């Protein structure tokens, strides 16, 4: 997620030196493993099975709505992998015309309400890696990352209604702040909260009947997609960058531009104590990686360990924190 | 066989050699950045015959470089195949458009090598001639279609390289007259048609 205009060389070198000091000095005086505060709200869209709204200082704001629709299995007795993976559909879009002239050129001008430009998966060319393909990446995390207490657990199993029928889950991420490079943390916390707040209507027809299933319309007895007490929890992705030998969580845009290596690590909570499993790791494009002589080109093994270690240490708290916030808000309503 | 190296392969200590083209330094080591043959050249000041011997303590620091051999009939002096115009490289270009301020040209050869893609360059009116710059008229110096030898003076902006023909050996080397027949140079500012004998103005390069 490099900023639209490059930073000037003195700025970058200032940042780089500050961040590679021991102890490092972040521009906002944060500790290396400290996150910026986020404003979060969930389950506020009445038409959705689950929804969330996340607002971050720098990354902006996004809304996630999850809708579940009843769908007939494409094949009756056999569900191939491809078919099953189609049960979840993720899309990331930018709300058009939000802020006039906001750099990326994706927001349509004027003051329209329509959808301006599609980012993420839509706009990924070779150049904008990192979070390009945001939808692909989010889905990958979901499919791989359900697996808490049993590696065999999959979110897809929760979507089976009866023989021949399943829920089709539409996860729509709407970025209210136009950007071509949405922050992975923003997207993943938003999807995480929305999933935790997703409830599906209770099935009233028997499981083993091939007929169209029927559901109770009482939301009080609806079933949560993710059990609030048990332990597959929706996964969360944490961006982490390295400058020199220092590792920083939740890097700001400028920090990413000055960083030498970056990863987005997807984790899911396994137990009450807050220990996590890594369910996915992806490289993130950072400013200083490569090109010039004397810059670091990749991640050494030791650094990789430190980066993942830092995420694993903090992720439990973050996921738990998000979960608690979700619960609080759910039952307040 | 072992004289071939691949990128990433260490070639020796950075203190023992001066890095030339095709190598870079990492962790105090000279590292190859091309596939090719290692060439060390000792500065001629020292006595030793060509570059046969590797560093001994007395000889001046040799330059080490990696060259990628190319399949070509005439072995030229510039062996690395990928080329981009650089400041002070000599290029051949074809004039594509002219206006009063500048001539736009399409560069097809850099340092005697033909490039795969043509690069766009401009010759601004003040860069046409070394002297009497104020009197230069692009219209009297170049016409579209002329083949010009020029020197790169700046990488310019995002789309154009800046070229200059200020210099005796720089300027039009091939041109057709308005009638479409070939012309030959008669002096540094005129060319004459082979068939009709019409004389046209050009900024002519001095023939070798």
């Amino acid at each position, binding site marked *: 997620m490099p900023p639209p*205009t*490059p*930073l*000037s*060389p*003195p*700025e970058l*070198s*200032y*940042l780089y*030196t*500050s961040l590679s*000091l021991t102890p490092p*000095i*972040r*521009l*906002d*005086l*944060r*500790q290396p*493993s*400290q*996150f*910026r*505060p*986020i*404003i*979060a*709200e969930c389950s506020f869209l009445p038409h959705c099975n689950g929804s969330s*709204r996340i*607002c*971050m*200082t720098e990354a902006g704001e996004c809304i996630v709505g999850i809708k579940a629709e009843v769908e007939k299995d494409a094949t009756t007795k056999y569900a191939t992998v491809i078919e099953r993976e189609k049960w979840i559909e993720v899309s990331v879009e930018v709300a058009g015309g939000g802020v006039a*002239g906001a750099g990326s050129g994706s927001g349509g001008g004027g003051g329209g309400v329509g959808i301006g430009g599609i980012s993420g998966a839509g706009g990924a060319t070779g150049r904008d890696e990192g979070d390009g393909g945001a939808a692909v990446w989010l889905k990958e995390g979901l499919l791989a990352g359900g697996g808490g207490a049993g590696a065999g657990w999959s979110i897809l199993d929760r979507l089976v209604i009866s023989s021949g029928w399943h829920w089709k889950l539409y996860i729509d991420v709407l970025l209210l702040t136009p950007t071509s490079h949405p922050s992975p943390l923003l997207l993943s916390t938003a999807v995480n909260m929305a999933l935790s707040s997703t409830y599906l209507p209770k099935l009233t027809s028997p499981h083993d009947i091939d007929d169209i299933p029927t559901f109770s319309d009482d939301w009080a007895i609806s079933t949560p997609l993710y059990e609030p007490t048990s332990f597959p929890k929706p996964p969360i992705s944490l961006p982490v960058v390295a400058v020199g030998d220092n590792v920083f*969580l939740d890097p700001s845009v400028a920090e990413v531009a000055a960083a030498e290596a970056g990863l987005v690590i997807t984790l899911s909570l396994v137990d009450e104590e807050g220990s996590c499993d890594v369910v996915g790791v992806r490289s993130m494009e950072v400013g200083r990686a490569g090109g010039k002589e004397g810059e670091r080109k990749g991640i050494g093994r030791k650094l990789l360990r430190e980066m993942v270690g830092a995420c694993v240490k*903090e992720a439990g*708290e*973050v996921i738990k*924190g*998000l979960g608690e*916030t979700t619960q*609080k*808000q759910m039952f307040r309503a | 066989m072992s004289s071939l190296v691949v990128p990433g392969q260490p070639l020796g200590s950075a203190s023992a050699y001066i890095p030339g083209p095709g190598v870079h330094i990492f962790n105090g080591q000279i590292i190859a950045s091309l596939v090719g043959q290692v060439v060390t050249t000792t500065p001629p000041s020292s006595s030793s015959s060509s570059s046969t011997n590797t560093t001994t303590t007395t000889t001046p620091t040799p330059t080490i470089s990696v060259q990628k051999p190319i399949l070509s009939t005439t072995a030229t002096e510039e062996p690395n195949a990928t080329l981009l115009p650089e400041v002070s490289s000599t290029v051949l270009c074809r004039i594509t458009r002219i206006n009063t301020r500048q001539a736009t040209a399409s560069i097809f050869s850099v340092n005697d090598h033909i490039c795969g893609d043509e690069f766009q360059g401009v010759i601004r009116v*003040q*860069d046409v001639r070394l002297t009497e710059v104020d009197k230069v008229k692009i219209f009297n110096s170049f016409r579209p279609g002329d083949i010009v030898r020029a020197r790169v*003076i*700046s990488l*310019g*902006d995002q789309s154009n390289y*800046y070229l200059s023909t200020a210099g005796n050996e720089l300027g039009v080397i091939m041109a057709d007259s308005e009638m479409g027949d070939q012309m030959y140079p008669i002096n540094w500012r005129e060319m004459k048609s082979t068939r009709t004998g019409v004389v046209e103005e050009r900024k002519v390069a001095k023939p070798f």
Partner: protein
Amino acid sequence: MPIQIIAPAPFVTAADEEDDEGGVRLDFDNEGDIAMDSDAPRRAGRQTGGIVTPGEVVTDDPQWMRGHGTYLCQSHESGSQSIVSSLAGTISKTNKLLSIRALKFRYVPEIGDLVVGRILEVQTKRWRVDIAAPHSATLLLSSINLPGGILRKRTSTDELQIRTFFSEGDLLVAEVQTLSNDGQASLHTRSLKYGKLRNGVFMMIDAGMVRRMKSHVLTMNTSNGGGEVDIYLGVNGYIYIAKHTTPLTESGGPEGKSVSITRLEEEASEAIYSNVNEEISPETRAEIARIACVIGALAKNGVKVDEEMVHLGYEAALEEFLQGMEWGGDGEMGRRVVEASLVKRREQ
């Protein structure tokens, strides 16, 4: 907890009221209470800080002239003309001219403004500079100081080397020299006060949050061994905070020996366009970061940034001894610093 998760709060809180000067009161001159007593809605508006909304009648007193952000409207009943606001903002008046200052707006350049900008594009003889205005500004090659003496003639070589002076992404401090008809600004850096920025950090706040002052370049003495720090408060809301450097002025003065003057100029000019930072101690870096956080907190809490507030805020921050995320977004601590500094100001 490594992360702070906040439930969304309702928009305006009473706490904002405390900041009694949030760009409102001070825009009135001393006879501030504009005589428009007949206007009931206006009065109500004034009590909540003098904010008007588009369509709101400001006054129907014919003594006032219509300024920016207002329009004239013929009232149906009385047939009298009244001035109606076309912006959401505060009323400001100069003599008999009534204008509305919007609460939130993009920076509109004015001649003489000191701005911090970032190069967007390099063209043949000029640069396009982002100054947070609706149009990007231009900086002509002829409007900058060229290395090798202030009075040197511009040559065509300079044109070829334009990228060595400023290239894309570079930050600079400049003054608005002229404005074109469509409001596009043309900048100049023909003073040693202006030019390329280095040795520090860049941040941006809302353009409206920087108060126009006599001088927008502050030099602050910091604690904790930070030394002196320069703050460039661009009127456009772009701010640069850097280690203090001795200004590259012609300090040799007229009485200095002519040889040394030229040498000095020579040296100064070479440094102008350098991209290399000086040695900056960790202490200075920490204090620069602290000042950046103070300014950020001030702006976020709706307090206009000026020299006094930066100083007070910095003092308050030192007392609170804040770390990291407490500053952020709606962080309680950031607000505390701002409140503490407001208290300090009242005491003075």
